[in-house]
């Protein structure tokens, strides 16, 4: 279906009927989900100082990933950023289990360092904040590929990372609070739409 901005998922999920009408689903046993949950928790506590030991990314790549995530969703007056939300851990875990993501993100981070080295003589993390902003401003917008087709792979990578960072942030405790989602609780009465002027 050639849907543009509203994904089929959004629609089905909002209808609460994704299960019965959705795309490709496969439910994993509950035990596996519980296992996965405890897995990251236990590894966080097991590692020295509570630091997360990346499963897929090298130390350097993971540091770059963290920096990019935090740049995409930074802390502000109302909430922490992507790092505080655990987005890099989430991305690393999923990527460690998915070959396609390894190419997109692992390869994408390599592309970024190589491109920075070509342009600025050093990998991304060693660049000045001004240079970091310069390259990100190039790969954060699809239209820039028209002027410089050599950026298109970087744009694709950044778009994918931006989506995953948003996923990681907005499904975290602080991200959900930041959005203002209220629910997932027991109510004895559902009141419906509150009084809103003009509605």
């Amino acid at each position, binding site marked *: 279906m050639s849907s543009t901005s509203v994904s089929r998922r959004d629609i089905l999920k909002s209808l609460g009927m994704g299960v019965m009408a959705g795309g490709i689903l496969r439910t994993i046993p509950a035990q596996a989900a519980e296992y*996965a949950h405890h897995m990251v928790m236990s590894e966080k506590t097991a590692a020295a100082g509570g630091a997360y030991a990346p499963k897929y990314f090298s130390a350097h790549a993971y540091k770059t990933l963290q920096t990019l995530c935090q740049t995409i969703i930074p802390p502000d007056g109302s909430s922490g950023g992507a790092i505080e939300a655990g987005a890099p851990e989430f991305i690393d875990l999923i990527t460690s289990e998915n070959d396609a993501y390894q190419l997109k993100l692992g390869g994408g981070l390599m592309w970024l360092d190589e491109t920075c080295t070509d342009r600025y003589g050093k990998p991304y993390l060693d660049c000045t904040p001004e240079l970091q902003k310069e390259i990100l401003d190039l790969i954060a917008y699809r239209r820039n590929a028209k002027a410089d087709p050599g950026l298109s792979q970087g744009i694709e990578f950044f778009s994918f990372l931006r989506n995953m960072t948003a*996923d990681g942030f907005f499904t975290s405790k602080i991200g959900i609070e*930041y959005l203002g989602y209220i629910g997932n609780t027991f109510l004895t009465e559902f009141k419906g739409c509150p009084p809103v002027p003009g509605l």
Partner: protein
Amino acid sequence: MPEVIRSPKTYDVCIIGSGAGGGTAAKVLAEGGLNVVLLEAGPPLNPEKDYKEHVWPYQLAHRGVGVGAKQGGLNDEFLAPNGFWDIEGEPYTQAEGSRFRWFRSRIVGGRTNHWGRIALRFAPVDFKSRSSDGMGDDWPLSYEEIAPYYDKVESFIGVFGSQENISSAPNGVFLPPPPPRCTETIIKKACDQVGVLCVPSRLAILTKPLNGRAACHYCGQCGRGCISASNFSSSQVMIPPAQATGRLTLITGAMAREVVVGKDGKAAAVSYVDKATKSEKRVYAKAFVLAASACESARLLLNSKSSLFPDGLANTSGVVGRYLTDTVGSGGGGYFPQLEKMPPHNHDGTGGMHMYVPWWKFDRKNDFLRGYHIEFGGGRGMPGVGDFGDACDMFEGYGASLKKKLRSDYGTYIGFAGRGEMIPNPDSYCELDPSTVDQWGIPVLRFHWKWSENEILMAKDMQETFRAITEAAGGTYLTQTSAEGSKPYGIEDGGVIIHEIGTARMGNNPRTSVLNSNCQAHDVKNLFVTDGAPFVTNADKNPTLTIMALSWRASEYLIAQAKSGSL
């Protein structure tokens, strides 16, 4: 083949499948005094362990999307267990040029664990289609004959709704409907403007306590399974009373392979594979109720070949597997700016829509025959992985401004899903694949599928209606579809809406139908089919409520027949 292990006793009835049809039969038959054995291909269900109700995404390492997020970003970790588009070792095939998807739930309760709880009665006209427009066939029973069973089912399982006196959406026995969400208030107003009916929806979710089950607590998570059984599932609502009689034997992990016929031409036993031991077992009974799902029951009949029934059991008509239909589905969505101003509030509600659009153009000439209804929803649901990709792609950039935009954009979309009637056609059917067996050695189904022009015109009308409603509300309709491509006007592939039915249809003529109006095989009088297979038409209504009404009715008939010694 090692020795077949026989059941020590002969049951009154053997039911195959524990979903909507099988669960209803189990309850009615066991409460009616019969000794029942129920075979289920999947494992038992343990709500306390299996359900992910009230779990937040951040409480799972994969945030709900599962290992490797390999299911297209769907939050499958949250779903009630064992509903699958693909089952390892249990394939099905598609004929060249056909696209058909088959959702199967291998678990006690079957797909009632996973359905949308939408519980709509067929209307009187839905049983008289051929008389109305010359296409398809009439049912061998009328709305008036099935209506008392709709009453019984609704009274027992609990369905909320409202009496609307709409000819396409009959009144029923309803619990009070929940109040509309903001998204629903907006759409209702827009529908009023463009002359489209919009009324409280009808879902099998309790808004008042019923039969020992608690009322809904409005967490919006029916799809995960409900610990308090406030929504309907066969596993939590039909099976327990059957078990309470002491006359139900439930055998899980039992993959039925063949219905064995005796010398007298009656069904005598079911051979099944015990999945745990991979051994062949056989259970004997005086009567059999197939409720394995329309296509799975057709498969079982086609695989039950004997010298008496060389083309499959109860298939002297040759129509087992034929007349396969699914619902016509096309979806889309739009952006509604007024939702940006909505103050944060609890929008969850029940696990489905509180309002819907029943078929409203029944009083005029349309470009297509039959009709459709519209389901819709959106707004400030619990955030999930994959919910922000579209907005990220739209806004681009990064940093503080992106973060703010994503927040103001959250909850501003409403999606629509049209659900329409498909008329059976000769190019849509299932049959045994001549070259493929599953891991249990059982020949699998091969699907043939084709939409006809009528359905495509219906999908076109759906898209136009979604746009008209969205624009009347001041929104922007974002879905783009066209007549071109493999999915004209967004029409989904066959099977995707998971309303596949009709594969052992009922009728008065044994040469053109498999069952009589009591779901009893014309050829084999102690054999019944009570899932979606008996349906003659696939009205725009979701089939589950009608499956239960038919099964209840067939089960009462079976009891009467058993008591009079006629089986």
